């Protein structure tokens, strides 16, 4: 895998197709490979690929520090690339100005990998390796959520209170999210202040409600938010709940179909309304 990956990147840099490769490089001491930005074809030897490549690099397509480096090629997994699909649907990137190198993945030993149905990238310009995409029934994909929802609401509330009590509002969840691209996050808006910036329980609930709902029907389930949380708050459950609702109600799985209409901002006269008096 690694050799063809490096070769592809070298070729793309050498022939001037791209000016920078966004990939994974081996950290000196850290356990996880970290993102590297390779501009010199002779440096492709820095690229690594292993089962620790958990970071979703798609975020870097949006960061202006990386944008100034020129036209990028980006290394993605089948799960990561869904974010590229959404970013294009939401006018954040010009797909023709990005070369996507998909790498087949057998899993990164994360909970979501067990129910992954995107081991093999589908929308990449170059694909390295082969993996089999096994369709996963929705019940399996949302099993963690279903189990959680078996508790009574008061227990769920107690769970989130205990979790969000720890949130320090470092915004790592937002900064790592490939779909958080607002020029000015709503939490930074004052006049009026929509939600308290304080890392109190009140401010933290408001923040995590906003964060989850701003990803409603958009979240691609890459779990970066949970991965990076220094307080270990597992945000998967809220993301899953939004994903399940948009799949169940609108047949929409974010990032799986570039042609699909986005859920919010569109509507159907047939949308359910059993809950409306």
């Amino acid at each position, binding site marked *: 895998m690694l050799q063809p990956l490096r070769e592809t990147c070298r070729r793309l840099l050498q022939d001037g197709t791209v000016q920078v490769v966004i990939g994974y490089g081996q950290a000196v001491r850290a356990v996880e490979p970290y993102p590297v930005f390779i501009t010199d074809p002779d440096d492709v030897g820095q690229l690594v690929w292993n089962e620790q490549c958990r970071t979703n690099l798609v975020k870097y397509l949006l960061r202006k520090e990386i944008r100034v480096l020129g036209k990028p090629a980006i290394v993605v997994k089948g799960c990561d690339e869904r974010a590229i699909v959404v970013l294009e649907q*939401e*006018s*954040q990137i010009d797909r023709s100005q990005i070369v996507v190198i998909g790498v087949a993945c057998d899993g990164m030993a994360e909970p979501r990998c067990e129910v992954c149905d995107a081991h093999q990238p589908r929308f990449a310009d170059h694909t390295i390796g082969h993996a089999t995409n096994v369709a996963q029934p929705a019940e399996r994909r949302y099993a963690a959520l279903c189990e959680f929802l078996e508790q009574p609401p008061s227990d769920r509330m107690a769970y989130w209170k205990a979790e969000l009590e720890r949130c320090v509002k470092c915004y790592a969840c937002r900064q790592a999210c490939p779909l958080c*691209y*607002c*020029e*000015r*996050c*709503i939490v930074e*808006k004052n*006049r*009026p*202040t*929509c939600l308290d910036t304080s890392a109190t329980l009140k401010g933290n609930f408001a923040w995590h409600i906003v964060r989850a709902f*701003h990803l409603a029907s958009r979240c691609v389930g890459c779990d970066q938010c949970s991965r990076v949380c220094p307080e270990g708050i597992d945000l998967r459950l809220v993301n899953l709940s939004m994903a399940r609702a948009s799949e169940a109600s609108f047949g929409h799985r974010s990032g799986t179909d570039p042609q699909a209409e*986005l859920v*919010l*901002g*569109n509507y159907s006269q047939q949308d359910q309304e059993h809950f409306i008096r």
Partner: protein
Amino acid sequence: MARIGVLTCWCGENIARNVDVQSVAEQAAQLPGVRCSRVHKYMCSDPGQKLIRDTIAAERLDGVVIASCSPHMHLKTFRKAAEHASLNPYLVEMANIREHCSWVHPERSRATAKAVDLIRVAVAKVRHNRALEPIQVPVTRKVLVVGGGVAGIQAALDIADAGVPVVLVEREPSIGGKMAGLSETFPTLDCSQCILTPRMVEVAQHPNITLYTCSDVEQVEGYVGNFQVTIRKRARYIDIDKCTGCGQCWSVCPSKKTPSEFDYGLGARTAIYAPFPQAVPARPVIDRDACLRLTKGRCGVCVKKCQADAIRFEDQDELVREDIGAIIVATGYQLYEIGKPDDRGRIAGYGEYGYGRYPDVISSLQFERLVSASGPTGGEIRRPSDGTVPKTVVFLSCVGSRDNAKGLSYCSKICCMVNAKHTMLYKHKVHDGQAHVFYMDIRAGGKNYDEFVRRAIEQDGAHYHRGRVSKITQEDGRLIVRGVDTLAGEPLTIAADLVVLAAAMRPATGVEELAQKVNVSYDEFGFLCESHPKLRPVETNAAGVFVCGACQGPKDIPESVTQASAAAGKVLMMFSRDRLYREPEIAHVQESACAGCFSCRRGCPYHAIDPAEIRDRQGQLVRRVARVNPGLCMGCGTCVALCLSKSIDLEGFSEQQVYAMVESLR
């Protein structure tokens, strides 16, 4: 610091009975930002409005809350009063302590407490109101009228006579609409064509009217006062400037078997044809599906015969663009298709009446053609099947109308009168004939209408049976009509020679697509929605778009004409100023914060949001952002809720205002 005045109204006893106005005023005076608090018996009265003006001046107020009735009742009144006192009208808000409080909460202390809360909310809001100026937009003084039936003709002529140019678009080869095919009209029995055709000619000759027939509205862009309309002129294959309308061409056309649309299939026409003798323009058209030259490449006798060299087989559809200031939709109606369910399967047909199966079961519009002197029988009433004169004719009301089971719940309004007229016309031509009418109720509201129905029954001897018909069968060349007379309480079977079904009125096909192009909403039946059923009957919620005639709901000719003139009046009023003034309570984008995801644009019901580019000083593209077109925005705020970063906000209901309102309830 804010200087807000709260003015609380007693509304006589209306508010004061359940709300302690004095106490409310005292508590309101204590609210943050409130400079003064006053009360008046009737705030909307002259002295009440004077109090408002005087208070604004004396206390140099920068915000006013009137605690009285619903803003739908008097917000405009009070904003005007403020304007007279030189306070920007948008700095006035209302607290609805009557409809929402005193009238519904008889317990005085609770109503009083709630009234204070409602004022608290309004004060919190008005602190964040901004002085707004109406948005001015230039206006193109030209009107598009869609539909050339009697309503469209009336509207077009009224406007054109006032000196304003009109573009009239008609789908059919001739204007005239449904009325041109009628024989006589109720309740005067005057000849339909005699009154309509002169108006049609007037349209054709009017210097201010541009007439496009065989044409459709393809696309509507822009906004009130500034629409750009694309019109598709379908190929007519005739150069109507050269053509003299002499009729030589259609007299020699060998393709003669196409059912005539104008006669609703009761007669046939040629492939090159004028829809009816008085058609305007008085020019033929070639039916491309029937013409041998266009379908098979053979023939061309018409070309040889035409001395004006006016036939153009190579004719193509043409797109014309017109700059338009206002649009009047007058697309009229069609009859409910009796025999079959509609294409969406929603409206089930009446298979049991045998329409389409039995040639002598016809619709009321077909009967009009049978009676008409210009019709296929020259005005003699003869059965379509064998040409004999029917001696017994049964007329059925409410075929489709008022029938929830068939999917149409409404009354088509004209059928009762049409049936009465038909029994009379029949009796006047077939003296020994007998007319029967099955009806549910007779609805003859209107000047001389009931008298007209009575005449049909009492003078012309029509038999009226209150009841419905369950089935029509054919036996020995006659139609057996099985129904019930509910007044007599017994089943009734009539052997008839002809059955006429008064089918329901439905909006013309394609009106929904047109409505979407002009952003007008329509009801579940496809009738276009007016702004307000009573007070704004010809306006729509799309600025600059008006409706008249049967596209808005079933109506008869006088009503359609009245509405058309009303719509024309509205348009002329709109054009009486050089610029249009629009409500400034619209959305605007804070471009520095916009990320350009365009979810606002996806959701905007008015297509009022366009992408705009931000470039740096070197001209390099920095970002794409959303921008609101103030001419199109109607201020619904859907964009605000869709914007994740809240980079778009709505004047009048801004984030700041709404949050302040909620916070005030803490």
